[in-house]
């Protein structure tokens, strides 16, 4: 009998488990090579990337398979690990694997210079992070789910605080851990409600329960709160703009691109799979929360001056859009309008994949800019397209995808989302019908504002003149960093150009969740994406791209044929003003000024304006989040006061504590007697 496992009969689930185990093993190897930079970064991280690629390959085949389950004899006695690989988890594994592959390859170049924590430890935390994210989506009972969820939070906490000698980073990490745990409590309670006093915490049991309207709503609200805290939905978003900039860039990329999506996975799993029926007001609540987050996120993103904070706020915006899409799917599903629910859900899932690629890419490029220049502040960057062209052009693709411009990936999800809103009239509730156009208008506004933000992001960093002397010595990204980013760029382009192929992957997922899919509608239209019928709506990204490219080339050739192609290089004209300096360009603050003015109620602004007679005039503006002042600081004050009250109990004298025990005993006796 061979000791080797029977590879010939391996299912996808075994393959996924092997990848997870291999990731953990890579992490453990890192501990033994704690400070060997070369080995850790040039061997372990690329291997991790390869495993990510393998995982995405396995997941790609698993999407189309029947759900597979496994019970592992691990964990506490009597509580084995239940795992399940179905369409939904395969889809998210695909996203985790494909994004993780690019980020790992990039990390091989990025961590080459140390981040304050020994590279071996970072390797352990990083691979544990990847493995637990995969386990979260595999989990089929509340116990494994919570173990994986908490390990994911902890490993990412250690990654965020990799540069733990900087006080701000420690504070950011603490805030992140706090919010993550408040969320985890809500998730735990949600599972408690879902098991309906049966004491069996497997998801299979939860699916079988028929909860009353009250308890299912309670479970949904707890899930929304718990997963919303992880995803960064309003008002639990405050950790996101602190933690993302604090973390090393590959970690920010993974957190923003992938970890936030595990929260989306959780919301989908609970509201469509574990709960049997949906209520319409859940969807309206998600729509409202999602839109509030989206608008808030994009407005704040436009006003930021730190490039990673800008991206973090943009993540809040994207999560908000995702949440709005899921909310719409819930509304449709509660009225039994399955094809429309499938359309809204497809839009959301498409955005999950597309956001994972473009946001990871953008975070990675900020990492490269940071390494090349040592600057994160937009006010000290500029003109990098001339010194680091590689980073710049790669970022441009990410920026276009993120701004939701055709023919890149962001546009497809936006298009599908708007289509699902347009098909709405026909809901049985006239209040909802009225609400939908307003919501569609807000989504359009958010999408347009995202374009503004992204022009600011790209324009201030890469275009114009360098605002600092040292930028002219900036070095372009190294080969590993280039490789990682190139992979993600390909994802953005492929998702943008081949929507009809990717929707075939999403089709089994929506069939699982809402029992309808777009696959059949989409198939058989060649290069066109047709969600319902050609005369209703269609979009052909490849024809679109070819059209623009053909006009570009024709114009280029015809001008040279009929006229000439001469170019003369000269000093910039600038209306004949010769003393132009880099400081006369628009600053990041200046670019955000119209937004600050138009959306003034969103911000808590303090302005310091100079007097006309000032010798050394100084202009200073800071913007803060209202939620800190309205919500978090009052809560913190209440907690502190309560802690002080309880603190008076602690006298530090043994006699007093004995007295407490005595009183407790007396009270117990009285209670037991009666």
């Amino acid at each position, binding site marked *: 009998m061979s000791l080797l496992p029977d590879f010939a009969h391996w299912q996808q689930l075994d393959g996924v488990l092997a990848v997870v185990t291999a990731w953990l093993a890579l992490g453990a190897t890192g501990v033994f090579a704690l400070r060997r930079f070369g080995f850790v970064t040039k061997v372990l991280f690329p291997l991790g990337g390869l495993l990510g690629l393998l995982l995405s390959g396995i997941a790609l085949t698993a999407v189309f398979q029947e759900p597979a389950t496994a019970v592992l004899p691990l964990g506490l006695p009597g509580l084995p690990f239940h795992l399940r690989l179905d369409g939904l988890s395969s889809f998210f594994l695909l996203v985790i694997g494909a994004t993780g592959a690019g980020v790992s390859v990039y990390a091989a170049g990025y961590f080459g210079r140390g981040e304050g924590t020994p590279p071996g430890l970072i390797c352990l935390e990083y691979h544990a992070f990847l493995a637990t994210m995969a386990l979260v989506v595999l989990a089929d009972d509340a116990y494994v789910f919570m173990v994986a969820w908490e390990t994911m939070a902890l490993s990412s906490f250690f990654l965020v605080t990799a540069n733990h000698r900087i006080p701000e980073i420690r504070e950011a990490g603490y805030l992140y851990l706090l919010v993550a745990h408040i969320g985890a409590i809500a998730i735990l309670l949600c599972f408690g409600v879902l098991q309906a006093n049966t004491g069996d915490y497997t998801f299979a049991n939860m699916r079988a329960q028929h909860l009353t309207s009250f308890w299912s709503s309670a479970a949904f609200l707890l899930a929304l709160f718990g997963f919303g805290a992880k995803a960064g939905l309003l008002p639990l978003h405050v950790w996101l703009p602190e933690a993302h900039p604090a973390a090393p860039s590959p970690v920010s990329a993974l957190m923003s691109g992938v970890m936030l999506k595990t929260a989306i996975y959780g919301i989908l799993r609970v509201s469509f799979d574990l709960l049997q029926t949906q209520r319409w007001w859940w969807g309206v609540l998600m729509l409202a929360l999602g839109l509030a987050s989206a608008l808030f996120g994009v407005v704040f993103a436009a006003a930021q001056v730190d490039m990673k904070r800008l991206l973090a706020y943009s993540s809040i915006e994207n999560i908000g859009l995702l949440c709005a899409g899921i909310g719409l799917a819930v509304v449709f599903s509660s009225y039994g309008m399955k094809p429309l629910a499938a359309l809204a859900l497809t839009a959301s899932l498409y955005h999950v994949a597309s956001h994972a690629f473009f946001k990871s890419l953008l975070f990675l490029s900020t990492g490269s800019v940071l390494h090349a220049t040592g600057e994160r502040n937009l006010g000290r960057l500029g003109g990098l397209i001339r010194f680091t062209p590689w980073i710049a052009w790669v970022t441009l693709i990410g920026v276009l995808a993120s701004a939701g411009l*055709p023919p890149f990936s962001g*546009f497809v999800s936006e298009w599908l989302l708007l289509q699902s809103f347009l098909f709405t009239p026909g809901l049985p509730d006239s209040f909802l019908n009225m609400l939908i*156009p307003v919501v569609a208008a807000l989504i359009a506004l958010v999408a347009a504002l995202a374009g503004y933000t992204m022009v600011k992001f790209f324009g201030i960093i890469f275009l*114009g003149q360098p605002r600092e002397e040292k930028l002219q010595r900036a070095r372009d990204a190294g080969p590993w960093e280039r490789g990682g980013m190139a992979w993600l760029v390909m994802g953005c382009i492929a998702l943008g150009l081949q929507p009809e192929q990717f929707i075939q992957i999403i089709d089994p997922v929506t069939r699982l969740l809402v029992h309808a899919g777009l696959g059949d509608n989409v198939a058989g239209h060649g290069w066109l994406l047709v969600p319902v019928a050609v005369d209703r709506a269609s979009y052909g990204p490849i024809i*679109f791209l070819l059209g623009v490219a053909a006009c570009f080339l024709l114009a280029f050739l015809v001008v040279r044929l*009929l006229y000439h192609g001469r*170019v003369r290089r000269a000093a910039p004209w*600038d209306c004949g003003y010769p003393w132009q300096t880099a400081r006369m360009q628009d600053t990041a603050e200046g670019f955000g000024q*119209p937004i600050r003015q138009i959306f003034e109620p969103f911000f808590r602004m303090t302005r310091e304006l100079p007097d006309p007679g000032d010798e050394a005039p100084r202009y200073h503006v800071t913007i803060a989040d209202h939620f800190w002042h309205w919500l978090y600081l009052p809560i913190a004050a209440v907690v502190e006061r309560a802690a002080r009250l309880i603190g008076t109990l602690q006298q530090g004298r043994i006699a007093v504590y004995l007295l407490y025990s005595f009183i407790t005993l007396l009270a117990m006796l009285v209670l037991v007697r009666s």
Partner: protein
Amino acid sequence: MNALAFASQALEILVALLLGPLLTGWVNQWRARLQNRTAPSLFLPFRTLHKLFIKEAVVAEHASPLFRAAPYIVFGCMVLACGIVPTLSTDLPLAPAADAIALVGLFALARVFISLAAMDIGTSFGTLGARREMLIGFLAEPALLMVLFSASLISKSTSLTTIVETLAHRELAIYPSLAFASVAFTMVSLAENARVPVDNPTTHLELTMIHEAMILEYSGRHLALIEWAASLKLFAYSCIGLALFFPWGVAEAQAPLALILALPVLVLKLAIGGIALAVFETVSAKMRIFRVPEFLAAAFLLAVIGMLVHILLGT
């Protein structure tokens, strides 16, 4: 798909390339007449383009390839936009590739590229223009989308050709939602085409210019392409307006006779629209830049109200 469809597609793009600058010339001619100036020739825009193409392109020393590629990209976007909007016929092979939402995306793509190109040189005017253009864009884009949605709610489709076919075949009844949408659309297209109450195409006054501030650094063939693209944009917007609110006279599938008739109808409609624009630009004054967000927010709200009205009244 047949030969006629491809012929009408090619004809449409060709007509757009020719009529675009003519429309600009026509509006300028009427503006001059209304302002008691001697009117320039109708073909002046073509002569200007010819002159610019002959001239050498002077590019700033540190301009990146993005700066040089942007005019071609913007031009390509606008040509494609003119090919998608049903100006002459609704039987267009390119039309299924982009519906109303993709058309708005196409305009946004052009806007983003021209703004980025404006920031590339790093002059104070360029970045200022880019910021203002994006400011107008993020308010005008959702408003335009809402206008198109009002029409697509009526036709239950976002495909522009279906919208035009449905609207052209309706009875002569006034849709209240379209009335709101038409006002909103007029406001949006004035803003998007840098026309008078928002921007002035003839100004070079630093405090007020938007579009001109962005293209200050361009010269020669690059400037020619941008100017041509701007006139194509005006043409495309006019045609969207005509297609939504006056869709009669556009040819449909398998109708060669109608295709031949469609051209004079289009020219007539554009001529009337051009005069209206010139009159409007002459009688109104340019507003302060800080008032522009209010103007566009009003357009946005009108468009949303239009959609709400449609849903309230039912179909």
